[in-house]
């Protein structure tokens, strides 16, 4: 009789343990999925920002800004000198 009661208690305990761990696994899976979704969204955002940065750093735009804002112009050969030859 005692043995039977012990066995029933053990089975119930194991069943409860299995239930708890399954529930926990479900929650973890949901968290992973949420994190994956967030990662995908962030990757999209990173790509968007990278595209925007590339657009802003486009040579055409930089050249326009340098010309309009700083009065610079494309370099000409006359403005270059070799370090050795340039030294007085």
């Amino acid at each position, binding site marked *: 009789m005692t043995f039977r009661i012990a066995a029933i208690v053990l089975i119930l305990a194991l069943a409860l343990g*299995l*239930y708890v761990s*399954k*529930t926990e696994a*479900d929650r973890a*899976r949901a968290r992973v*999925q949420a994190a*994956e*979704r967030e*990662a*995908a*969204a962030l990757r*999209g955002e990173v*790509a*968007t920002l*990278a*595209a*925007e*940065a*590339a*657009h802003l*750093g*486009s*040579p*055409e735009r930089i*050249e326009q800004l340098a010309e309009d804002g700083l009065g610079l112009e*494309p*370099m*000409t*050969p*006359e*403005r*270059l*000198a*070799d370090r050795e*030859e*340039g*030294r*007085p």
Partner: protein
Amino acid sequence: MTALFDPIRWGGAARRSAVVEAAPARRRIRAMAALLMVAFAALGLRAIALAFGAPPQESSPATAMAAPARADLVDRNGVLLAVTLPAYTLAANPHEVWDPADVAAQLSRALPGLDRAATERRLADRSRRLVYLRRGLTERQRDQIFALGLPGVTFEPDRRRVYPHGRLAAHALGHTDFQLAGVAGVERGLEADILRAGASGRPLALSLDVRIQHALEAELAVGMERAEAQGAAGVVLDGRTGEVLAIASLPDFDPNAPPALDAPSRAARATGVVFEMGSTLKPFTTMAALQAGLVRPGETWVTRDPVRVGSLSVRDVSPSPTPIGLEEGLARSSNIVAADLARRLSAPRLREAYARAGLLDRSPIETPEQPAPIAPRREDPVSTAVLGYGHGIATTMIALAGAYTVFCNEGARVAPTLRAHADGDEIVRTPAFDPHAARAVLAMMRRAATNGTARLAETPGLAVAAKTGTAEKPGRGGYDPDRRLSSIAAVFPAHDPAYVVVLALDEPRATERTGGRATGGAVAAPVLAKLLARIAPMLELSPGAAAPHTAAAGGAP
């Protein structure tokens, strides 16, 4: 069967029969209990199944988004050229749209370019539960429309290919369709590589350099405007590896909103159109003649008067009053000398030399729109003579640039490529000409830049070797003297040849600003000079170094 609710029995009058009646009642109760037990057992089993069974697999949107990943395209320095961004498709359920006219009006205000009448018609189509109105919306556009609060209007997640530099290198990059499949340019030509790199999450590096690309496009645009040309094109090659550092065709287009494939701006003049190149092919005639030992040292030609070849009168644009040697012949771009060398070689041998230079094959460049060169097999004296100075053979500018790599590799040729060269990649050098002949012709082209037709291409201290070309385009009933392809092909620095540039203006006009001439030397050579001055520092060549006057002026550090 007695009725359970018999009023007489419940009244207690028939107590005698109660014991007899109890047996069927107990049976009924047992049956009910059994039924309930089965039901509870079913519920319990279902509860256990839900608690312990495997959860239903839901597809994660992250993996759905990643389906056919397309790698980003970057230039040789890692600058982003093409990227796949999250986008949204604007959709609507016509059953939930109250006022199609009003919704269409609001949408077309938010999205310029949306056809208002067509949108209204589609929104009013009650036979459908879902209509797609516009693909490839940015996040910002989605938020903007979302803020309008239009009932029935929805958004579906999607992706789109974006080219952050707009028109830069449009023909080379090409574009994709809405399913993100490559349609033109390397997007199509390198499709397999792009998908492979995308699967491993890496960007695909192209050989282009955005700085040089921009300089090329800017200078071509200036040259095109100056000569009032119909179009312009150019290629800058690393002559040792074959990498295309810049390649441009004007007019161009914005790959973010590509025009129809047959629009005039879609013509990729650098890779997708064959031209008769004219005198830029003379170096190959000269090299073949030298290699075959058909020129005696010190030999001269008289170019003062036109020379008759069959029905053709071969004349020089700038005849010399005195006999000229081979070097002077190339520097002055003498048709008479080139025609005579062609006669000595014979048409088959000359054609074979062009073939070795890669001019008679489709270029292996990774853009799909490659026409085959046109080179009819004619061997009569007239055809042979004109073949000597680059007529009767039409090829692409990229093939010409590839041919000029023989000057950078001791007579061997490398194939132009848009793929970035990685350390350890093997470079295939195809021997084409004798190294001595290649060096000799390079020196003659250097002379063309210092004293000949390519004088305007001379860039201080950069030692350019160049050959100009002015070819009349075939028109109705022969060549049309008013429609020309004026070009220049250059190798630099001449003492250590490493780079090849080919530039051309399509149908330039002789204007006041071009000195009244529309030749390669007048319209293409100045573009080359300005381009080289700009890109030399990017190539870590110091154009100022060899020029004495700059050394004196450069005293300040």
